């Protein structure tokens, strides 16, 4: 923790970094905060731990107002995976984002069922083994197609269309969203049209989902969204040898579609 604070303090006071996105303890609750040189004393209240936020998405929000800003981020394994994909999808400029890594404890790793509970390097914590959980998925895969459809229709039927899954997702960076289009999915009803509402989102997650599990944690209706997206992730890994957040180099498989210029375009 001290090394982390020191690292951030040095980068803010001596380095080129204008601000560092992290969590600050405020009224007993951690919340995202941009630590800056001007308020260096805020660093005393920097926390890492149980609380989880899509910090990469918050960072992206800040950077959208100032694309050239040089910012840092306190990143757990999941946050770094998100940054990798945001860079690959031309949302963040990788050269202007500095990662201050935090390795998660084994308790955190198992609570999150994390496939990679550490970033590429870290200033705080110790590396622990990944916790792979495919139990939910295996169980569903063993069901007959009919039973599986019934299971998912039942789960999708609980949806209250709060958009929590999309709003919390560090990979939902689009500025317009298919899920808001009345022509594609009827607005004003709950549950939203099923299964299309959830399947559209699942397909959009195919080469993006970094398996952080924030969607499922945010879902007030307890829909096992992570299991759904895990399935997509597995398919993409098996078919294309590409795993979002893990595969370091190259484009995502869907980025080769169209005229092949996706990688050169800004935004989406």
């Amino acid at each position, binding site marked *: 923790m001290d090394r982390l604070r020191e690292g951030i303090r040095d980068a803010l006071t001596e380095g080129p970094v204008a601000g560092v996105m992290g969590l600050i303890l405020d*009224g*007993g*609750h951690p919340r995202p905060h941009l630590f800056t040189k001007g308020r260096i004393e805020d660093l005393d209240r920097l926390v890492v731990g149980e609380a989880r936020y899509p910090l990469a998405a918050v960072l992206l929000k800040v950077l959208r107002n100032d694309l050239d800003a040089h910012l840092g981020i306190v990143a757990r394994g999941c946050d770094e995976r998100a940054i990798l994909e945001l860079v690959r999808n031309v949302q963040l400029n990788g050269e202007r984002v500095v990662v201050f890594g935090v390795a998660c404890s084994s308790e955190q790793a198992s609570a999150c069922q994390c496939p990679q509970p550490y970033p590429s390097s870290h200033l705080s914590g110790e590396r622990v083994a990944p916790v792979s959980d495919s139990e939910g998925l295996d169980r569903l895969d063993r069901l007959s197609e009919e039973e599986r459809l019934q299971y998912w229709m039942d789960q999708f*039927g*609980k949806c*209250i*269309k*709060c*958009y929590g899954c999309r709003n919390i997702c560090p990979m939902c960076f689009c500025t317009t969203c298919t899920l*808001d289009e009345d022509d594609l999915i009827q*607005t*004003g*009803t*709950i*549950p939203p049209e099923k299964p299309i509402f959830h399947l559209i989102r699942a397909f959009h997650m195919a080469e993006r989902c970094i398996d952080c599990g924030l969607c499922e944690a945010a879902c*007030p*209706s*307890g829909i096992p969204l992570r299991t759904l997206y895990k399935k997509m992730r597995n398919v993409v890994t098996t078919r294309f040898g590409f795993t979002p957040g893990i595969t370091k180099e190259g484009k995502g498989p869907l980025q080769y579609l169209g005229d092949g210029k996706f990688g050169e375009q800004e935004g989406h």
Partner: protein
Amino acid sequence: MTNSVEELEDAACILIIGSNTTVAHPIIATRIFRAREKGAKIIVVDPRKTHIASYADLYLAEKSGTDVAVINGLLHIIIKEGWYDKEFVEKRTEGFAVLKTFIEEYTPARVSEITGIPEVQLRQAAEMFAKAKQSSIVYCMGITQHTVGVDNVLSLANLSMATGHIGKWASGVNPLRGQNNVQGSTDMAAIPNVLPGYQSLADDAVIAKFETAWGVTLPRKPGLTIMEMMDAIGTGGIRALYVMGENPMVSDPDIQHVKKALESLELLIVQDIFPTETVALAHVVLPGVTFAEKDGTFVSTDRRVQRIRKAIEPIGEARPDWQIICDVAHAMGAPDFDYASPSEVFDEIASLVPLFAGISYDRIAENGIQWPCRTKEAPSTVFMHKDTFSKGLGTFKPVAYKAPAELPDEEYPFILITGRDAFHYHTGSMTRRSKSLTGQINRCYVQIHPADAKKLRIKAGQLTRLRSRRGAIEVEARITPIVQSGSVFVPFHFAETAANVLTNPALDPVVKIPEFKICAVKLEKVA
């Protein structure tokens, strides 16, 4: 709620009656879904086949306003079959013999005729609820907003006591409160017949305590309920009205009457965060602050006193409600309204209200404390009535089924039910300012059963006029079997086509709640 929200997950059977839970209390619905996934039986009783009804093991499609008959019918079967909790009845209650005799006439055949629920379903529900290890009742405005609202609640109390499903973990009677702090405002006696903490106006010791603390002489007579106020305006009883955070121009029944009443006031003061339909009629507007701009406490539906912490400073001229109230009091010559902070106000509450006596800002901390909490050492009360009821023994109060105040006739052949849509909250004063919510829906509609729509040649999306004895609105038709044939449903959030133009201001004789859930209307196609 006698239980906590989280306990619902552990119930073995949940009887949901008059609650459109997924739409109106989605977070509580989640607990019910979890219970269901753990094997709990879900029974839904409602005249509409609501979303949660589609997840029920048993859905009883009652006729509107027949809840007392349904519950008496269940009790009849439970007592006849010997499925009631004999030990609980003997040790914890009184008046069972009277109930037993009274309930005789609610035979399945008769109840089925009144309610429209098949006898076999009544039997199934009775067995499911009575025999489950832990059963909970969840109810909402579908129970209370009737001229028999109190009777409905009493019959649910009878059911829970007879089956011993109260005073235990995951077992009790659970009304779901609507606003985030409606429990808190009731606790603090924003009702006319008690002092804070439900302390009686008839109790001399209570009165003496408050008179000493406040240095005033308190009136001993109960005041007026909101519906009685509307009637007392213009007849010389009330000349000025101070409305805080309420929008009766959309939320009260028979809006045309409400409007006339408010317009005839000599002085209307409205304190709110947005310019509502009621603010539009005000002589004086006092801008309050939103949740984000204030410190204080909210009390949630499960009696949990929680802290609210200011995130930003008040914007513009807006000020915290407690400061506005103190200033008004000062201007009226009451200098003792003198507090430095909300926590000082809370300390006064703790000193005068036994239910809150052990609660302070320090103890509330991050997780809140559930009342009753009578001493500084007392723990949070997770569920109520564990070993005894507040009055000692629980008394069975048999109630007879009574018909609603206004039923359909030849001229007005449909029952109108009003209620909530998933995307808006109450009078829309907040939610209709949200782009993402108005993007989902921003127009009123009426749900009509396909058979009725066919008969009246009304097509989906067509503008349809609803008329009651009090007024008319024109809204878009939604053809759906969610409603029974002979009934229509309109959400009441939309001021420009307010459902409450139509509703009947008939009141429950005891608590004066209006019958929002049933009035007679006719439907006409708009040319």
